[in-house]
């Protein structure tokens, strides 16, 4: 029963989506009930997963494997390690919250929930896939629902609404439309998002196919590939094959993260999306990028990762600073949050690039923390938009009189996003900064400047929305009063604050996933933690943190070859 936790988490939303097909849109409460019910099953199961995950044992747990296509060597191989577990939890929290945030959608409610559930389930699927094929399968599957969610329930920007006339609409079908970067329509945003992400996903697929071919094992199984694939030192095109694969995989997945030069789809997409979709997208979909890089590049090509990860260290600075400055000057609430998200994802890349226990643990915790913070911000930006039909910061103001609860929550969300003590973001940020200092001091200074920038633009937005004089045309706007409206915000605040006061389980879980990875990449055995005494661990006492899967147990542990090759 408990072993099937992953299947409940993954398939509850799918079952909900299928059940919704057979319900009429007129039975609104039933539609909402089915959506919320299936999200609740997923949430409870992932809470169980999170607390039942044995961080002392580490490795991949709750493993499920079903043969799926023998000829291609594909199996539905599911399992979570310390990195996947908190992200699965974050996804199901955001899905559950997102169902309530979109409680008031009137147009085609059923279809909205169907696509939202599919989007979330596919995202969750990536976090638990141990098979390269299924990782890509769920990844690509999570991109397409975005098109419909943005296109059908999204909103145009202010400029677009002012710009277009009935005649101008025809231009949107032309080829030039896709190249027209000035366009601000939701259709443009949706198309750009899908094509951009698919194009880079295809690059990652090329990398996956190369891994599949040159490993020569006729399998897509990550656990087999990371032990047995020999991809190093094959000369290709004046460089080596592993570097080409790594670059394909890294940039393929970094586009969704989004790393700086590949970010342009993200703010546009977030701005056009309905609130719940933005939440899920900024909250967890963007983490698919980091997660897939960790899962594919870090696991299968550790040596190459050590060699090439400085690329991320350079690009992440641009992410942080560029995103921060654009967010400061943006006039549209969702653009501010969107650019802030892509700026904050730079921290995760910094934590990953440093390849240090503390920094990588911090990076994973930051993904979790950022999911909550940005989820709250998007939920409230959505609420303000629903009430005022405006996202234009200069025209808004003084809303704290009309919506005290929302403005109170907004302060908390800003605090969380900045990383003020009292929220789990603080712990994560400090860990990234402390962990990366030795290797990348300059980047850390940039990151700290980025925090100041975050403070500046979020407070500017807060002032612009909730304080100062209020335009009388917004006097009909009202606060979130109903339980269904308050619940999602309260859940996310509780999680964000709760993990600040009780971070140890989260930390231990993440650390159990990070340790074997870093050992493999850097060959430095970690400084012992908390309950296991202090000092540098000797190689003899270091418990090999491998999974209990028979497949792996038969082959030598990843730790064994390294001590003989010398510790630092």
């Amino acid at each position: 029963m408990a072993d099937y936790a992953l299947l409940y988490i993954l398939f509850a939303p799918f079952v909900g989506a299928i059940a919704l097909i057979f319900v009429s849109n007129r039975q609104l409460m039933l539609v909402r009930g089915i959506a919320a019910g299936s999200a609740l099953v997923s949430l409870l199961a992932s809470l169980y997963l999170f607390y039942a995950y044995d961080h002392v044992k580490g490795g991949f747990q709750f493993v499920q494997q079903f043969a799926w296509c023998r000829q291609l060597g594909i199996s539905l191989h599911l399992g979570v390690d310390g990195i996947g577990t908190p992200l699965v939890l974050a996804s199901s929290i955001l899905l559950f919250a997102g169902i309530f945030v979109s409680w008031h959608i009137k147009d085609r409610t059923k279809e909205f929930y169907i696509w939202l559930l599919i989007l979330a389930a596919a995202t969750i699927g990536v976090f638990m896939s141990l098979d390269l094929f299924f990782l890509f399968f769920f990844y690509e599957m999570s991109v397409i629902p975005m098109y419909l969610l943005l296109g059908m329930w999204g909103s145009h920007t202010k400029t677009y609404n002012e710009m277009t006339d009935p005649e101008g609409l025809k231009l949107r079908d032309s080829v030039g439309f896709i190249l027209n970067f000035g366009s601000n329509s939701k259709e443009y945003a949706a198309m750009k998002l899908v094509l951009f992400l698919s194009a880079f996903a295809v690059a990652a697929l090329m990398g996956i196919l190369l891994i599949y071919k040159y490993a020569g094992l006729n399998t897509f199984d990550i656990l087999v590939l990371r032990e047995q694939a020999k991809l190093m030192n094959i000369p290709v095109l004046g460089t080596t094959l592993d570097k080409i694969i790594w670059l394909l995989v890294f940039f393929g997945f970094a586009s969704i993260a989004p790393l700086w030069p590949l970010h342009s789809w993200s703010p546009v997409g977030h701005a056009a999306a309905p609130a719940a979709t933005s939440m899920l997208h900024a909250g967890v979909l963007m983490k698919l990028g980091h997660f897939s890089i960790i899962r594919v590049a870090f696991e299968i090509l550790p040596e190459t990762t050590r060699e090439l990860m400085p690329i991320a260290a350079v690009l992440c600075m641009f992410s942080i600073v560029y995103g921060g400055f654009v967010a400061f000057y943006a006039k549209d609430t969702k653009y501010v949050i969107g650019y802030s998200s892509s700026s904050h994802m730079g921290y995760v890349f910094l934590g990953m690039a440093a390849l240090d226990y503390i920094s990588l643990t911090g990076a994973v915790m930051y993904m979790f923390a950022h999911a909550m913070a940005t989820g709250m911000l998007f939920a409230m930006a959505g609420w303000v938009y629903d009430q005022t039909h405006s996202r234009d910061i200069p025209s808004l103001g003084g809303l704290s009189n009309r919506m005290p609860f929302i403005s109170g929550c907004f302060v908390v969300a800003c605090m969380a996003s900045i990383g003020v003590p009292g929220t789990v973001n603080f712990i994560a940020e400090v860990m990234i900064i402390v962990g990366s200092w030795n290797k990348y001091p300059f980047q850390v200074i940039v990151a700290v400047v980025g925090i100041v920038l975050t403070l500046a633009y979020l407070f500017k937005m807060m002032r612009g929305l909730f304080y100062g004089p209020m335009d009388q045309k917004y006097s009909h706007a009202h606060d979130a009063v109903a339980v269904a409206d308050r619940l999602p915000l309260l859940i996310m605040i509780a999680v964000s604050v709760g993990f600040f006061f009780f971070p140890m389980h989260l930390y231990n879980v993440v650390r159990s996933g990070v340790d074997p990875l870093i050992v493999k990449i850097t060959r430095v055995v970690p400084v012992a933690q908390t309950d296991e005494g202090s000092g540098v661990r000797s190689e003899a006492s270091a418990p090999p943190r491998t999974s209990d899967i028979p497949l792996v147990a038969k082959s030598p542990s990843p730790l064994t070859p390294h001590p003989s090759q010398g510790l630092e």
Partner: protein
Amino acid sequence: MTFALTMSSSDLLLLLPEILLTSWLCLILIVDFSFPRLPNEQLAYFSIAGLVATLGCLVWFDIAGITGTLFANMFALDRMALFFKMFIVGSTILVILASVDFIHRFKFFRGEYYALIVMSALGMMFMASANDLLSVFVALEFSTIGFYILVAYLREDTASNEAGIKFFILGIFAAALLAYGISLVYGETGKLVFSDMKAAQATPGLAIGFLLIFAALGFKIGAVPFHSWVPDTYHGSPTPVTAFLSIAPKGAAFAILLRMFLVALTTFKPVWVLLIVAVSILSMTYGNIVAIAQKNMKRLLAYSGIAQIGNVLIGLAAGTKMGSDAMLFYLLTYLFANLGAFAIVIAVSEAIGSEEIEDYSGLGRRSPFLAFSMLIFLLSLAGVPPLAGFIGKLYIFVAATKEGLYALITIGLINIIISLYYYLIVVKKMYVSEPHDRSPLKVSGPIKVVVYVCLAGTLAIGIYPQPVTDWVVSAILAFSNVADPTAALPVPPAAIPFGG
């Protein structure tokens, strides 16, 4: 099972599906002439009954493993032939079901319509079994003659007439090329049966002969540069005929291509791979780029069909057993997605009388069922998980990766993105644009059945492909002479040629 060269009653067993369908074809005509007042649906269901019986017979052959050759190897019934025959008969059944409503547009000869469709199917069944150049020629022409008439069946419609003329002239031209190619090959080798040509010497005559045969078959599958008839013919033909034309002849022609390249020409693989790679790249790129500009749904599907054929050719370029498996798999996923899409084109044009993409605006509000199905079919054609098309594309790419065709795969992957764009334009029209007219659309029963079957196929293959992969793998296994399976083993990583 082996059979003597002289005909005996047990040899006739191998021809049972064809004999069954031939007699049914005659029955259809007799019934049509004897009962002129018989409603059209009755005749459609009567034809379907015969086809279902044929399909049952084929399934029985496949399960019982009844295979063999006839007429001095002219007619080969192996499991690959059985696969393609089931493919053809299955698509014929769906096409006839989809025609039931469309048929009222024909002013005359409604009964003959079914007879002609069954006749073409019969010709294509012979194509699937054709194992020598003469039977290729005869079977190919037999099936095409039916199509010449079917394409021009809307007699009052100038577009249909134009389609008929174009198809006829180019078709005759292709037939001439085929005949000339056959004569050259026969002159050079003195052989007609594919499996006898393995020892042939590479002479200019042989090369030109096979190029001409390939051109004729390329015309049949609509690959660039033999595609010029495709858009106008697809556009002008009655839509069920377009659907039929877009699926069944391609399956049959691929059966011949597989036999020709993997049996007769195995020794020349390094040479013909370049030819197939070039044709594949041209088809994918041309089809997808031109499809972007289309305003008419049938033309869009025509160009997307050209591109899909380019994808199938990637499997042929791999030239291995796995590549052939992947081709069969891909054709099957293409059958469901493409026939489903055409069924919806028929349903929409029945309801609103238009096939323009503009008129699909707001289909998601007017008929959620049709719009959702169309979404599934288009995304399957584009290759989005968890639909059948995605597995098909991946299968083909994996097969090509194993042969190191990286340039081809890269272009194939880029083309997925291009195709996603124009499929999503249709999706946008259906779901995002508001309808001009909000009245709900009515969908008739037979079309619904077709759509449900295609939906089931697309989703089932996408979610659990194992049964189908097992089927295609065994279908190719029994088909002898495929390049040795050791080719699939890893190549020692020396210097890697990073190109086509």
